[in-house]
């Protein structure tokens, strides 16, 4: 397992295997009758739903009751309210994906100060420290994901072209790492390519920003969108252009899988493993509730997904086969 990035404080990654629970750990956890709350930035993405599945399943195996799963819809106010409300419920642990690095800091810090174990997913508000303000951060290797996306797009960029990046307009560890890594890979490996960046603040604004970016820079020959939900909006916005630009993104969501399998415009995906990440988050939570030390940062490597391996990657990530209609559409199954 190669992890390319460093953690939010420059930490080296620890592998998720370090949190593997033994049968006696599960027995000990069940005896504690634990209560855990989950606060997500959104539940609208395929990635988020699969991550929650991984967490809830593993917590269930350890006898931990999930008392709430909150969808903050990317709103810091909603997240602060949820953290305040759940703090008063005094669960043993809260698992949270902070929606940004600034406005939700104090609400998260109050969780640890109340003696509730806090495990973070994908993002750490600036100034919060592991072991003091939170237990661990569990994320994908987001720097590695940006690198994969750049490499996949590079194959579709002619000499001297420009690449457009649709970046997230919030200070968010995971999205920042992907964008920085994409730029870095191009700088080192494709110095002939110039990178033009636009930012979006809402998912349904990404398409408009992409169209504007391409209008402003006609030399753009390909796009990278920092995750799959805004990517779908970008695909809709640019699909009537001639030529349609190739696009790479992060996360093999259902719609992106379909677009990639059918031949574009999505030409490659840096895949995360949300189910396994959810399991790692839950295992970390149980480990700390058993009063054992946890690493500051656990990271899962990215998967390289192109059209040639999209079906088996889908199975790896989603833990289920693609639909029958889908296989027929790809001539992998004969229609009756």
């Amino acid at each position, binding site marked *: 397992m190669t992890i390319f*990035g460093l953690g*939010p404080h420059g930490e080296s990654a620890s592998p998720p295997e370090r949190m593997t629970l033994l049968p006696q750990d599960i027995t000990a956890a069940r005896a504690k009758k634990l209560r855990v709350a989950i606060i997500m930035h959104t539940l609208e993405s395929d990635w988020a739903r699969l991550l929650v599945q991984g967490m809830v399943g593993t917590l269930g195996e350890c006898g931990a009751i999930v008392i709430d799963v909150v969808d903050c819809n990317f709103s810091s106010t909603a997240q602060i309210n949820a953290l305040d409300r759940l703090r008063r419920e005094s669960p043993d642990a809260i698992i949270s994906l902070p929606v940004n690095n600034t406005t939700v800091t104090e609400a998260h810090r109050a969780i640890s100060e109340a003696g509730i174990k806090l495990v973070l997913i994908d993002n750490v508000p*600036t100034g919060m420290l592991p072991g003091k303000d939170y237990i661990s951060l569990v994320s994908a290797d987001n720097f590695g994901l940006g690198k994969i996306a750049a490499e996949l797009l590079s194959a579709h960029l002619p000499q001297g072209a420009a690449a457009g990046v649709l970046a997230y307009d919030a200070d968010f560890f995971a999205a920042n790492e992907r964008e920085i890594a994409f730029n870095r890979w191009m700088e080192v490996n494709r110095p002939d390519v110039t990178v033009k960046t636009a930012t979006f603040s809402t998912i349904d604004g990404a398409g408009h920003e992409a169209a504007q970016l391409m209008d402003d820079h006609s030399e753009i020959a390909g796009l990278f969108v920092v995750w799959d939900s805004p990517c779908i909006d970008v695909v809709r916005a640019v699909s009537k252009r001639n030529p349609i630009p190739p696009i790479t993104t992060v996360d093999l969501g259902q719609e992106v899988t379909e677009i990639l399998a059918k031949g574009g415009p999505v030409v490659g995906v840096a895949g995360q493993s949300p189910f396994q990440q959810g399991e790692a988050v839950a295992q970390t939570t149980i480990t700390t509730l058993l009063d054992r030390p946890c690493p500051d940062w656990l990271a899962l490597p990215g998967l390289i997904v192109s059209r040639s391996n999209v079906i088996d990657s889908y199975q790896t990530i989603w833990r289920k086969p693609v639909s029958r209609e889908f296989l027929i559409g790809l001539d992998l199954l004969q229609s009756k």
Partner: protein
Amino acid sequence: MHTDKLAPNHQRGKGRPRNSEAATASLVAVLNHVRLGQPTTRQDLERVSEYGRAIIADRLAILTELGLVNESGTGVATGGRAPRLVQFTNDRARLAVVTLDQSAIGVGLADISGKLLTEHHEAANMIDQTKTVDRIHALINWLMTRQSETPDLWGISISVPGAVLTKHNAAFLLETPNFLPNWNKSGLVEALMRRFDAPVWMNSNVQAMTMGELHGGAGIDQQAMLFVKVGQRIGAGLVSNGQPYHGASGAAGLIGQLPVTSGDTTGSLDAMAGANMIKARGVEAAQSGKSAYLAEILVRKAEITAIEVCQAAQMGDPVSTEIVAQSGRLIGGVVATLANMLNPQLIVIAGSIAQTNDILLASVREAVYGASHPLVTRDLRILRSQMGNSAALLGAAGIAVSTLFDPMFLKGWILLGSPTRHPDFLYGLQTLSSITQQSDDGPQAPPGS
């Protein structure tokens, strides 16, 4: 070219009495009262500064116009209208902070109170100086463009993996110090000054991390702290009476040079207990098959670093555990000597080797508690830093802030509204430009030839 949006274009209010030398001194005093204290009222300022109402009103008017203070907040009413609170405008400008390590770069932005706002760390190889300088430039640029409005940049504070010897009383650098062999030829400081039109400061990683730990980590409110960073090199930082101690020439804490003995071998602490030793012994254990765990990593990854050995130790590999524990015992022996001499309240162990496992910390504790006088260890705490490389960034920000607002330096720029307009800095920048111009022009033919 960086231009400061709020800085006036000329020295303000020429001929007006409040711009006199005396006015500058009181401006500096009032600003530092506001900056270092809690939000306060005009009445409180009059009391603590011992200036009259008219002077306070005048100085606050100037500082408000310069964007350095604001009175947007209100305090608690005590019978009448709620008083307005005078506050330092932390967001007036930004400081770029950088930490360079043998294998990583960290870059962040801080406000002018020294609070870290955002940071990014990535793996890097310092061997290529030009690429390192370009990368720092690119990352600072990226961070600045991601701010909602491109802010004014008032300085760049860098921490580096080596002692930095600078001239006494120099408010900022004009050339790159030789913190590692040949880095004085890298042009790092010169390039950043030119590209961002901002003063540059540089300190050793250990000094910056000690400062960061003191202000944002386990060292908060500590009067006597010993900070030990364990990486390829091993260095120490000291806090005495709540203040960092740097020594006569800024080289305090180079404990990696001390000789230690293990078995029949004697060498420096760096060589006997640092990351290079851990890596070498880990590779040997993998290649010989003594550690099946490391041997498997070697087969899969083809490279073993000290981090892999430390993680293997944490996972329970006995060979790796002994390698890391041996390093901890040697470091602990040296730290015990320092502890007996200095009697710290707190010892913080930091750096990549300490961060990835608990074995090193346990071995250091065992050695220090075993070799120290009971009076020294009675209230002593030995902890692992929780800050990682953020300590270096936070410390670099703190160093920049204390230099910018040092009364001697502040006097030189306060009426100009920005340290980037300080006459000494402008002169330095001009000198740098003329040197660059001369080297760009190359040798010129003598007149009349």
